[in-house]
């Protein structure tokens, strides 16, 4: 280790305590990798100066793609030449983040051959993140990845790498096959994923049930959240078992139901399903006794974003219920209609949720060819404030 990195007193603080430490891991990598060593030096310097010394963006990428590589540079290249260029790859993760240990070893081997060896499993969009590549290593690393069945994910103004919950692979509440839908959309929109053509990013997230384990309602431009149309399935004997085992059904289920649509008389549970808003609370508390209904599909919500530019938005209902069967034509038709309108009239760095706010929901629906319905709300029992032109004309 070079002289300048022997002392990292501020980073050393982050190794203390019983928790896993990224500093400890970077130090391990730094024993064999000069880029990891440079990272430590620059990081210590950032903690001293209380400012990031990374700058990002620019002209790096792999041939033919506009996404998947984020250019990153040190603003102290003379002091830390090992990390003068320290680009990030986003590698498209498998649906539901399922790997074999062989695949993980392959990924690590590729990355140790070409870059810093440092990874982030996974980034907040869901991709496998490889941190720290020189510009020269970009193409050879990409070639190795593709030779092993991996491809880059999205970055910039494109479809970002779609992600999904583990769905039916591990969860009995999945109302549709999130893994298949995510995989299908990823393959269907390779061009939109690799060749940025939108005003800004567009994220798909697939959640199998309203528990929304991928937090799609807060993070994705298009949230596809599993739901059901018919009644919650109730096993009364199991409900009684829960009660016998100490669950206070009145207090823990009935009183916490947001619409108070559940009644318990000490023997049987009665649900007024027409009033149910699919919050999942009762099902989560008594998973052996209650299950989602049998007529399953998904609700499509549009417009969430994190507060990078402007404030955060939660997505709002656009399609109350859609059957989610391959090849997902209705979902694709909706996404493409949105891209067509937003793509043409959206401002640079304007997410689709912000665009809808600017042009108005009524105009937006008109342009994408969707009829307004009362369920188009941000949350149950809220007013969507859709103004219908015909009604306005009548008033005039």
């Amino acid at each position, binding site marked *: 280790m070079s002289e300048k990195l022997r002392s990292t007193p501020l980073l050393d603080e982050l190794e203390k305590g019983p928790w896993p430490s990224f500093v400890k891991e970077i130090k391990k990598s730094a024993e064999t990798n000069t880029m990891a060593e440079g990272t430590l030096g620059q990081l210590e310097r950032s903690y001293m100066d209380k400012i990031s010394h990374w700058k990002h*963006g*620019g*002209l*790096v*990428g792999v*041939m*033919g*793609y*506009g*996404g998947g590589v*984020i*250019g990153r540079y040190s603003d102290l290249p003379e002091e830390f030449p090992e990390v003068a260029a320290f680009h990030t790859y986003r590698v498209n993760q498998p649906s539901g983040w399922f790997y074999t240990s062989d695949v993980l070893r392959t990924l690590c081997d590729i990355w140790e051959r070409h870059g810093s060896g440092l990874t982030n499993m996974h980034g907040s969009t869901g991709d496998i993140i490889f941190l720290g590549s020189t*510009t020269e290593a970009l193409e050879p690393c990409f070639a190795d990845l593709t030779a092993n069945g991996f491809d880059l994910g999205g*970055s*910039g*103004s*494109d479809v970002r790498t779609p992600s999904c919950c583990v769905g039916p692979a591990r969860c009995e509440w999945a109302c549709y096959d999130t893994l298949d839908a995510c995989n299908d959309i990823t393959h269907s929109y390779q*061009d939109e994923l690799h*060749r*940025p*053509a*939108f*005003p*800004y990013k567009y994220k798909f997230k697939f959640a199998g049930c309203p528990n929304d384990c991928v937090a799609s309602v807060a993070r994705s431009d298009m949230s596809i959240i599993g739901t059901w149309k018919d009644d919650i399935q109730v096993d009364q004997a199991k409900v009684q078992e829960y009660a016998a085992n100490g669950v206070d059904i009145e207090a823990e289920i009935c009183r916490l139901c947001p619409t108070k649509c559940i009644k318990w008389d000490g023997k049987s549970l009665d649900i007024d399903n027409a009033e149910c808003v699919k919050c999942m609370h009762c099902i989560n508390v008594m998973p052996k006794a209650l299950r989602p209904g049998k007529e399953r599909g998904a609700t499509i919500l549009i417009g969430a974003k994190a507060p990078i530019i402007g404030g955060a938005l939660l997505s709002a209902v656009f399609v109350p219920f859609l059957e989610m069967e391959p090849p997902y034509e209705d979902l694709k038709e909706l996404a493409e209609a949105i891209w*067509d309108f937003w*793509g*043409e009239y959206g401002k*640079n*760095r304007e997410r689709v949720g912000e665009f809808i706010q600017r042009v108005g929901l009524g105009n937006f629906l008109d342009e994408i060819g969707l009829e307004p319905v009362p369920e188009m709300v941000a949350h149950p029992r809220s007013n969507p404030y859709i103004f219908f032109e015909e009604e306005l004309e009548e008033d005039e």
Partner: protein
Amino acid sequence: MSQPTVDEVAEAMYDLVKVTHGKKNLKAMDLTKAMIEKFGEDAVDKKFCKLAIRQLIDSGRCIYSYFGGSFITLPPEEGSGG
């Protein structure tokens, strides 16, 4: 105006990127709109322009860049340091 080929539209896009280089960053949609205006909406549409952009990028004559959004630009000149 007669139906242009993908190559011709890609060439027109390249000319536009070259002319605006250093003055204005162009997004894929800016190029598309400019081509529809130049050749007419009966001759080229968004899908056709998408093919032309792909040709332009795959040939290496233009690249994608990121400056707070994704743009289509000329590749850095040799020795310019990117």
